[in-house]
């Protein structure tokens, strides 16, 4: 008893000594209090020291709020991983159980609705964040040598994110998911040379079925996470190696390689960490707000024998492509896609040292045109969504808002007094795919 008391006193005394000896009192002390990690172990392994070094790391003094975009993208990815793991505790990747497990997640599991909502909204926001991050790098000339490799890695990461979205889209196994993926695979199959093979590998069956669901699930939770992890490691490693790019307005001859540990720079802790914290909590709160205010409705279960009357991809893509098809008659989408591809690939070949925007009129012009075209088409498509164009003043099905839940299998029509609802038996069959 006495020896134990002595041991405790000894430990407390050493901790206090460590505390007083510490220069980074606040955070490191907090970490030290959490566990014994930095006590005895710290004396043998220089963990505390490396932490201290990392916290004291000075970033370029140009690092500002706009550099948070990449961090936001990363934060959203972490959110996707965490909520995705929680969802996978309940989700069952089979055609028989997928829909019912989504129902259970949304209405049965504790906070399941929040996990699904956060996962869904983070998946949407990460695309916006990644594109914003790319735009910052593009207009800020941060891709110039020696950082062009990282632009390439970033592009691959963007495609990985999009692949995550495409594979995750099927998993709810409702009508929208089923038929959107059917359409997508049909389009894939029309790609010259490799399309047919690729589509049949992804589909795994003559039609989208349980085999397809298994494949998409495997890609979504096994293949793509490892790809993303590898690419992220490369991306961050290159950022650490090259440092933050010099500002756009800096002298062109200022040298592309920023000093490793700029003595004039801003320390990571607390300045940059506080800034990141503020941004991070706001992003999480926005995602949570979207999840609570705009919950994704649970559609009718997938029915391979009955295509829905209206099939529309969600989100901005639908509006942009609608406006382009409506006003430019087909060449618009192709032109915009080509311009986007050009913009994505140009940085790999742009080796001139100029950084200021006005010294790069071609790049700035093309970028501005692309940005303006997307925004204009988006707004136009959004307006088109509600505007009747047919002679009879009716909205075409293509223009109508997608119905929230398509009626499931209609029940046989029973003799009803007229004036009853059009199809009294047509009720969403939510138990159809259920257990």
């Amino acid at each position, binding site marked *: 008893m006495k020896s134990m008391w002595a041991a405790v006193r000894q430990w407390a005394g050493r901790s206090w000594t460590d505390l*007083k000896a*510490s*220069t*980074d*009192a*606040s955070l490191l002390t907090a970490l030290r209090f959490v566990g014994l990690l930095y006590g005895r172990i710290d004396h043998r392994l220089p963990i505390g020291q490396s932490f201290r070094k990392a916290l004291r790391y000075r970033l370029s003094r140009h690092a500002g709020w706009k550099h948070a975009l990449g961090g936001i993208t990363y934060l959203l990815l972490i959110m996707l991983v965490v909520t995705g793991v929680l969802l996978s505790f309940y989700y069952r990747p089979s055609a028989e159980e997928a829909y*019912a497990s*989504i*129902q*259970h*997640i*949304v*209405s*049965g599991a504790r906070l399941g*609705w*929040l996990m699904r909502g956060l996962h869904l909204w983070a998946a949407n926001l990460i695309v916006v964040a990644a594109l914003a991050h790319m735009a910052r790098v593009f207009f800020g000339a941060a891709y110039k040598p020696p950082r062009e490799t990282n632009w390439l890695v970033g592009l691959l990461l963007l495609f990985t994110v999009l692949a995550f979205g495409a594979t995750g889209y099927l998993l709810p196994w409702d009508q929208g998911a089923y038929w959107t993926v059917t359409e997508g695979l049909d389009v894939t199959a029309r790609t010259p040379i490799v399309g047919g093979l690729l589509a049949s590998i992804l589909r795994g069956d003559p039609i989208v079925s349980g085999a397809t669901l298994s494949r998409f699930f495997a890609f979504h939770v096994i293949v793509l996470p490892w790809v993303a992890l590898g690419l992220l490691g490369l991306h961050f490693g290159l950022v650490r190696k090259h440092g933050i790019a010099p500002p756009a307005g800096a002298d062109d001859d200022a040298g592309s390689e920023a000093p490793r540990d700029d003595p004039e720079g*801003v*320390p990571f802790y*607390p*300045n940059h960490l*506080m*800034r990141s*914290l*503020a941004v991070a*909590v*706001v992003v*999480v*709160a926005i995602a*949570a*707000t979207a999840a*609570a*205010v705009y*919950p994704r*409705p*649970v*559609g*009718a279960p997938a029915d391979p024998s009955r295509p829905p009357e209206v099939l529309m991809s969600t989100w901005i893509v639908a509006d942009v492509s609608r406006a382009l098809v409506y006003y430019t008659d087909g060449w618009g989408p192709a032109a915009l896609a080509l311009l986007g591809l050009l913009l994505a690939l140009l940085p790999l070949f742009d080796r001139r040292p100029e950084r200021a925007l006005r010294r790069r009129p071609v790049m700035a012009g093309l970028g501005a045109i692309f940005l303006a075209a997307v925004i204009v088409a988006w707004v136009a498509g959004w307006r088109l969504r509600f505007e009747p164009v047919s002679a009879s003043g009716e909205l075409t099905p293509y223009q109508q808002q997608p119905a*929230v*839940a398509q009626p499931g299998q209609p*029940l046989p029509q*029973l*003799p*009803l*007094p*007229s*004036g*009853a*609802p059009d199809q*009294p*038996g047509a*009720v*969403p*069959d*939510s*138990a159809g795919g*259920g257990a």
Partner: protein
Amino acid sequence: MSRSGRRVTLAVLVLAAAPGTLRAAPALAPRQVVQSADTLNGCLSCHAEQRRAATEGVHAQQGVTCTTCHGGNPRARALPEAHTGRFIGAPGKEATAQLCGSCHSDPGRMREYGLPTGQLAEFRASRHGQLLLGQHDQNAPTCTDCHGTHIIYPPYDARSRVYPMNIPGTCAACHSDGDLMRGYQLPTDQLDQFRQSAHGVALFQQQNFAAPTCASCHGAHSELPPTVTEIANVCGQCHALVEQQFGKGPHGAAARAGDMEGCLGCHSNHGTERVPIDSTSATCDNCHAADTRLHQMGVDLQRRLTQARSDMESAQRALQTLSVAGERTGDYRFSYQSALTYYGQIAQKQHSLDLDTLDYLNARVRSVSVELDARAEASNESDWEHKLLLLPVWFLTLSAVALAWLLLRALSGAGGRADEPEA
């Protein structure tokens, strides 16, 4: 036996079998008689325009040839030999009915085809038959006017004029002809009404062959309009449960006494349709004066029907809400299904005008609707609770941002950055 010897035997056997095989093949081919009739029948050497009749249609298939009906000598290739024997030429309308009946009224002949034999007797009793055979009215139709003359298809053949979907058009060929019908004081709008009616929509648009055509209510060969007291029975052949309820009530008694045109009291005959719920009471007012007890009964009836409809709609909305919110709706759908059954029963039971039964059924519908509404309400409330969670989320978020901002401001106040936080 040597190998070559065996080979020779085999060849001989094959050669011996070959002619037999060749002879057997034509004998097995179907419709041999019909095909030969095309070339052997001498009638066709002059009447070439009837060539198709020798091969097509149910009569040609069964070996009924020109001479079976018209008589004459099919072996002759020219007049006058061809028109000898029991030759009758083209029979008149009345003779045609008798001619068809000579086979089709004979049970001995029709047995093998499973056909009824009462058509001619029915025709005699029908309005068409009375006109043609009784009054020798040449405007009245005979067998061939509806079934076709030389090429007669069975009723299940879509080319037949008496194929279910073709029957209304076949009847309308005469009955839409205003000049022809004026002489009989008959209306000509039956087909137009029928197309709009529930029966016509089912037949023409949904291709539902259980739907009645003209002949289903008027009779095929014994066609006559149903009389006042027959109407409920005619409709009741299909609408059995409605007829049962109708017969129980005061309207049924009135119809049996001939005081009311049965179903036609409220519904149309050719333009059959449901009476819209919202004009139920107005329909009652067609017969019952506005300030009577029976008018009030119509108002009460309409109120119950309206109530049931709004309950069903509300149950449907609730089910939609629950489904979209991801609830497992299997049990609710089961309840809804039972409400749908009660709702369907209301449609039948209202014909008995028994308001107490309607009250009972209404209560059953309502109990389901109330239950589903409560579930949907609970689901909406949990939505609201989800939004409440945003209060602490944003409180913590704004606190963290404010803290970070204060700290950053303090740091910038201390010379732009904090090199070493004080220990």
